[in-house]
């Protein structure tokens, strides 16, 4: 059984101009110890998918529905808010791009860490402190005991993100969701954090959903990837299959617009022209069609269904892309 099972997830937000369909029928499975990448541009529904799983979408104006949203066999949408709160922080945890906004600026790091441990693990003060020191050491914060008394502003960006990871890990969660967790960090610090996440998943068997717009980080960290566009997964597959045989016009577009530091790229980038569609109106055909460079006549009449290419690799695209295809 998968640790997380998502079937036909829809999340909508009511606005004056109509419902925004931020997530539009997302389905996937996440196995124990697996790292899943969610990639796509701003507004593609990556973060809302994650927030819906954590049930952190404010309702109203949000509305989450799904055929199934099961964590370890329990349907999350059937849980009360109190039950959900027990799950969050103990069996599922989430970290964000800007740790400063998740940390309380007027409380010490130690206080914020022990709070979680006392609340969820029912540890007493001394035990919670010992465990907090242990956790800070695990995420590579030097002189951890001394740092417990420091406030968030006394830490650098990379250190704050380590503290967030330490808090997220404090109750040994089985699922960790990281939403653009290294986007605001310098590359040398990003490399440290990615390395840390890899080591922790290997040692603890934690499953991870890694949300990022950076194909490079995903290529180095994840086992499989979901590419999202306009609120849905348009292509999904194991990391190697997807990068070597991109099978959706949008995936191909993303790769063509990404310059590479190893210089194997081209003299000229191939941007994706135009902009993503409004998510208020229902989109009957392929949502990427107006921007697609590889569309075929059938795209004008038929909405693409999932096409399977074997070994769990599939795409919602009618065009027959071959391995090594580049965006024209």
């Amino acid at each position, binding site marked *: 059984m998968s640790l997380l099972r998502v079937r036909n997830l829809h999340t909508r937000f009511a606005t004056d101009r109509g419902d925004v369909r931020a997530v539009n029928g997302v389905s996937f499975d996440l196995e124990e110890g697996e790292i899943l990448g969610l990639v796509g541009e701003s507004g593609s529904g990556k973060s809302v998918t994650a927030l819906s799983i954590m049930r952190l979408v404010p309702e109203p104006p949000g509305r989450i529905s799904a055929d199934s949203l099961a964590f370890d066999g329990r349907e999350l949408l059937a849980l009360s808010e109190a039950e959900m709160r027990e799950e969050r922080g103990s069996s599922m945890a989430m970290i964000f791009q800007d740790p400063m906004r998740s940390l309380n600026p007027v409380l010490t790091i130690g206080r914020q860490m022990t709070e979680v441990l006392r609340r969820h693990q029912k540890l007493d003060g001394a035990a919670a402190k010992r465990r907090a020191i242990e956790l800070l050491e695990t995420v590579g914060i030097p002189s951890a005991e001394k740092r417990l008394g420091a406030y968030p502003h006394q830490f650098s960006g990379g250190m704050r993100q380590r503290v967030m990871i330490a808090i997220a890990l404090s109750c040994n969660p089985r699922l960790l969701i990281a939403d653009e967790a290294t986007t605001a960090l310098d590359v040398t610090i990003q490399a*440290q954090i990615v*390395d840390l996440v890899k080591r922790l998943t290997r040692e603890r068997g934690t499953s991870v959903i890694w949300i990022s717009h950076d194909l490079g980080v995903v290529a180095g960290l994840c086992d499989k990837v979901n590419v999202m566009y306009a609120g849905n997964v348009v292509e999904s597959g194991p*990391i190697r299959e997807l990068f070597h045989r991109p099978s959706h016009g949008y995936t191909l577009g993303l790769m063509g617009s990404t310059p590479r530091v190893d210089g194997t790229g081209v003299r000229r980038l191939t941007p994706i022209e135009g902009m993503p569609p409004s998510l208020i109106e229902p989109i009957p055909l392929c949502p990427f069609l107006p921007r697609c460079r590889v569309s075929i006549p059938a795209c004008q009449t038929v909405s693409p269904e999932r096409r399977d290419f074997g070994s769990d690799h599939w795409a919602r695209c009618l065009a027959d892309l071959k391995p090594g295809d580049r965006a024209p």
Partner: protein
Amino acid sequence: MSTLLEVEDLDVHFGRPDAPGTVKAVDGVSFKVEKGRTLGLVGESGCGKSTTGYAILQLVRATSGRVLFDGTDLRQLGRRDLRRMRRKLQIIFQDAHASLNPRMPIGDLVGEALDIHGLFRGAARARRIRELLDMVGLSGSFFERYPHELSGGQAQRVAICRALAVEPELIICDEPVSALDVSIQAQIVNLLQDLQESLGLTYIFISHDLSVVRHISDQVAVMYLGKIVEMAGKTEIYGAPAHPYTKSLMSAVPVPDPDVETHRQRIILKGDLPNPADPPSGCRFRTRCPVAVPECAAVDPPQYPLGDGHWAKCIRLTGVNPHV
């Protein structure tokens, strides 16, 4: 090929001179930029790359050094002469929206640049604005629109359009694509390349993104805590980085290819950037350097030439200093 800009021993220090806690944001920076070429200025947050850009434009006051533009030292110019000269040097920023007055329609935003320098008047002015909008890929329908109606990519096009309005020779691009989605980023990068080709522009491209810098630059300078630690042509510096900081920086950039990523040797640096108000003695990188030796604390490393205009500041370079 002729040199358009030459920066000599540029210092920008914040705080009282020689008082403890003075931040040497830019410390002894020198480089040349050839006409029609692009110099990439890379480094992490706080390394002084943006401050260098601002000091060239005289947007921050340099403590010492020379900024020679076409032979004229910009630091010696009076206000009026400097304003006249600014026509030739323009800048675009990361947050284009923040650089556009929200109360002005796009046509006026572009026209303002023309008016300040008294370039086009009357009917010619409107014609010129449309022509400029067209150059950056915006239709005439943007004339009446306001900044809040623009997407991030469109706002950056307007910022580029404003810079182009005064027919500059040098544009300092300060992280111009860092806030954009990759597909839009590629549009702006292509636009900058096209404009360089058609107008013969010279760029200083400031960015923390080494992939984009490799793509767009001819020359690359790597900065760390206020100093350029290595400089070379693009092919040399990416193909054979010499300074340990450049090496670790390049190895840290992820590549969108799982096979490459699996086999890559990554040099993971320890710790964070030191406090710039109290930088390490000798080589500033030594506290995080994987190959530092005790001598590194004693010597501020000089520039070692490595051939073809490639140089690096490190006493541990292979073959350069065999006794260390």
